[in-house]
């Protein structure tokens, strides 16, 4: 059960995302009825699942929400900006309710009530006359905990001259006779009739009678067969559609007859011609109805199957489709829904294992190629040609397998509209979010770890970037500010840009702040770019008062660190009065890394390319000693520590002459610089990251391992750790406190 529940919550997440996306599309002026239907279906499915798990608070709210959406669907409710705003907030609350249900918590009832009232008010404004019961149900909800669905007949009234209308206009209790005979397929799909019966019991007083006449003797009994049927008497104020809803999950897998008893309009049923004699009381032209419904579906060409008139005929009138007709109706239904790509859920471990194996395949293939060349086989030999094909195939397999882990950034982007609404409300600013490139795909792990940095930068963009509406108008800009979130691929990396059209970075304030905090010297001359980058310094915050929005203890330095943790980089471009753009550039996957392959004392090592700023050749006049064994190298005007990797890792006891090697100027997470001295640079290469810890343990100065084309293991340097503890000074040199000693050496 827990597993099913987990799946339900997983599905909820997708449904909620669909819901929000749909509402946003509607807000953006989309009038496609299918969008409204999709939104309705999302809420409906959440409600259905929640009902099955007894999540009452969730069900109640979803029900009110669904009702209002139904008005929208039936055009009783106009698609205005106000309506959609309320609905978006309702979607937010629904998401909160789902999350609360997931963690077993309960949400503030008052909040649900308030929003439920608003939703009901929407319907009330527009459809009160034609739809008294909808309002009544809302009121019921507001009354409290009574988990009792009052009739919620919606949408069908305008065409309702049939039985559906009759039930609706009858606010009192109706007796229904329901005959429910599950087919074997129902049990095959792991459904349980008891759940359905329990669901019905919620609608009103239920009498259950079991028909076991079909039950064969034990010898003849097929253990997977279906022999039982139930005759149920239900006294309820709910409509037939509500009753049928209880059977939603077993639809097509059972014979179902729902008959109103003592219904003033029952006579009307009896007058209709009988296509298939079903039950004693009522006979309906089932087949004709279904055919009509199918015709509607066909003519609407996959679009508007829920056109109200058609619905009015299908939903309230049609009793159970006969077994033969049911699959047909189902097929039509399926065809009518917008084409959905089939997906499967796979354990991430399996995918990762596959990715590992393919990584192996690539290495093996490279080794094989090398051996063939070593064996002296010419390039045009059949073996070599076959290997070329193999190489191409392995590359394709690798790309395809990597694509399995790739997901569109949509899942991150979708969380932002809500955030924007909340921050806009809290700051009193008007914000419009524009998103681009939601379909851009990137590794799942990267996506998961992108949410926080993006969230924070959007907060910043609104809180610090955008001006107050009045200021904007004064500056000749529209009162509504714009935040644009876009994603695209550029040269094998994913780039995410957060752009606002606010005031831009106030460089003077940034500079003053940095001086005040002692981050830079008062007389320091900084370029605009350098000033902007001060924002990423630890402990920097420009907000004069720590605001509730951005000042939650994390600054841009944290953002920068988490982006670097993903092997990414972050840059700022800002123009006064026009706004700022923060650009994140990230690798497509965490399983591979762009590395600079270097040689140190005969060992091959890999430095993450993201940490390497530039390479330089130390010259005798740029290298200075500092303390007994410390060295610094001049990079333009600044001195940075020079660390001999060979000595640092213990490969050699005495550092080499700096001028005989090459230095990599690297930057660590917190912006510290150092020059790493290596013997030679072999080149740049993408390498597959392998864990050292899984079979061994963490090693100081080493981040991970990888396997090179020749099949040997190479170690990947942990640049941060190397900078943090440059250990190999035999006699600990007094740590230079400030810059003056450097200057003394330089002079």
């Amino acid at each position, binding site marked *: 059960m827990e597993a099913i529940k987990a799946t339900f919550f997983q599905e909820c997440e997708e449904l909620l995302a669909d819901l929000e996306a749909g509402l946003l599309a509607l807000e953006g002026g989309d009038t496609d009825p299918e969008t409204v239907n999709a939104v309705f279906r999302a809420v409906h499915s959440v409600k259905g699942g929640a009902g099955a798990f007894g999540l009452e608070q969730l069900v109640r709210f979803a029900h009110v929400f669904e009702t209002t959406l139904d008005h929208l669907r039936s055009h009783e409710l106009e698609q205005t900006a106000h309506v959609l705003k309320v609905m978006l907030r309702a979607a937010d609350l629904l998401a909160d309710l789902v999350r609360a249900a997931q963690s077993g918590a309960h949400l503030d009832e008052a909040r649900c009530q308030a929003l439920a009232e608003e939703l009901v008010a929407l319907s009330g404004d527009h459809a009160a006359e034609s739809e008294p019961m909808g309002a009544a149900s809302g009121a019921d909800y507001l009354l409290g905990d009574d988990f009792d669905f009052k009739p919620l007949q919606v949408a069908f009234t305008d065409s309702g001259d049939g039985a559906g209308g009759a039930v609706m206009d009858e606010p009192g209790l109706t007796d229904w006779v329901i005959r429910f005979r599950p087919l074997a397929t129902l049990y095959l799909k792991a459904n349980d009739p008891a759940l359905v019966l329990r669901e019905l019991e919620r609608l009103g007083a239920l009498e259950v009678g079991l028909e076991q006449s079909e039950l064969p003797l034990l010898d003849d009994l097929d253990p997977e067969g279906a022999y039982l049927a139930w005759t149920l008497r239900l006294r309820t104020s709910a409509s037939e559609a509500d009753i049928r809803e209880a059977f939603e999950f077993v639809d097509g897998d059972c014979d179902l007859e729902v008959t109103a008893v003592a219904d003033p309009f029952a006579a009307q049923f009896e007058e209709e011609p009988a296509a298939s004699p079903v039950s004693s009381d009522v006979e309906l032209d089932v087949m004709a109805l279904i055919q009509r419904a199918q015709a509607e579906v066909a003519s609407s060409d996959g679009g508007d199957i829920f056109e109200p008139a058609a619905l009015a005929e299908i939903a309230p009138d049609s009793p159970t489709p006969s077994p033969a007709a049911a699959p047909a109706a189902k097929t039509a239904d399926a065809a009518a829904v917008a084409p959905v790509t089939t997906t499967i859920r796979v354990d991430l471990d399996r995918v990762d294992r596959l990715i590992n194996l393919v*990584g*192996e395949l690539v290495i093996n293939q490279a080794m094989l190629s090398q051996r063939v060349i070593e064996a002296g086989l010419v390039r045009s030999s059949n073996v070599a040609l076959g290997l070329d094909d193999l190489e191409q195939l392995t590359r394709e397999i690798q790309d395809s397998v990597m694509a399995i882990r790739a997901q569109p950034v949509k899942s991150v982007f979708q969380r932002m509209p809500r955030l924007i609404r909340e921050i806009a409300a809290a700051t009193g600013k008007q914000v419009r979010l524009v998103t681009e490139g939601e379909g851009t795909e990137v590794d799942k792990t990267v996506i998961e770890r992108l949410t926080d940095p993006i969230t924070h930068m959007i907060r910043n963009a609104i809180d610090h970037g955008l001006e107050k509406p009045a200021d904007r108008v004064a500056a000749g800009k529209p009162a509504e500010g714009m935040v644009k979130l876009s994603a695209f691929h550029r040269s094998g990396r994913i780039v995410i840009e957060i752009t606002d059209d606010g005031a831009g970075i106030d460089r003077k304030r940034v500079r003053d702040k940095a001086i005040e905090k002692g981050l830079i010297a008062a007389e320091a001359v900084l370029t605009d770019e350098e000033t902007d980058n001060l924002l990423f310094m630890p402990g920097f915050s420009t907000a004069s008062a720590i605001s509730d929005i951005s000042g939650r203890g994390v600054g841009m330095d944290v953002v920068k660190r988490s982006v670097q943790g993903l092997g990414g980089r972050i840059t700022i471009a800002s123009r006064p009065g026009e706004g700022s753009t923060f650009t994140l550039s990230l690798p497509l996957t965490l399983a591979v890394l762009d590395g600079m392959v270097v040689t140190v004392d005969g060992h091959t090592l890999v430095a993450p390319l993201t940490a390497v700023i530039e390479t330089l050749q130390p010259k005798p006049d740029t290298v200075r000693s500092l303390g007994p064994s410390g060295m610094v190298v001049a990079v333009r005007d600044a001195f940075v520590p020079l660390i001999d990797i060979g000595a640092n890792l213990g490969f050699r006891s005495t550092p080499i002459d700096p001028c005989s090697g090459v230095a990599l100027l690297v930057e660590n997470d917190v912006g510290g610089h150092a020059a790493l001295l290596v013997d030679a640079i072999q080149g740049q290469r993408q390498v597959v990251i392998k864990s050292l810890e899984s079979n061994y343990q963490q090693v100081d100065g080493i981040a991970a391992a990888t396997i090179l084309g020749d099949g040997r293991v190479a170690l990947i340097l942990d640049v941060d750790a190397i900078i943090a503890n440059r250990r190999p000074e035999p006699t600990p040199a007094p740590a230079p406190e400030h810059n003056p000693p450097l200057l003394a050496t330089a002079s």
Partner: protein
Amino acid sequence: MSDLLHTSGQRRELISFRIGAQEFCVDIMAVREIRGWTSATPIPHSPNYVRGVINLRGAVLPIVDLAARLGFAITEPSARSVIIVTHIGERTVGLLVDAVSDILTVSDEVIQPTPDVTCDTVKAFVKGILAVDDRLISLISLDRVLPDLEAEAA
């Protein structure tokens, strides 16, 4: 048949190997495979008995020089040296030994407790001894072959 004859003691199979002039063995259930020596990539700041890591079909496999670990001289790997790939807990570790000699099937009672000697490495690694055809073979416990995390000081 053998089961009927030896109901009294648990029978187990051991792989014996040579380090220098002495013979040792480990339980065959801990052994995944035996492969020839390939040179390993050294790991910085590691104890002298950790030869480095090799690529075992995509996994990074640490190689422990068992001779050095047991307090003998560091092995100079030759073409005859082999790596015994073993499972130690959750980890997979390669043991560098001079040569694999035999597979022994013994019952538990043949394994005698380790005589009380003062040598620390014997206490730490030898969990029993057995005499087979005049040879003394020490049964090695693998649990402590890898360096302890806290005692990792290079």
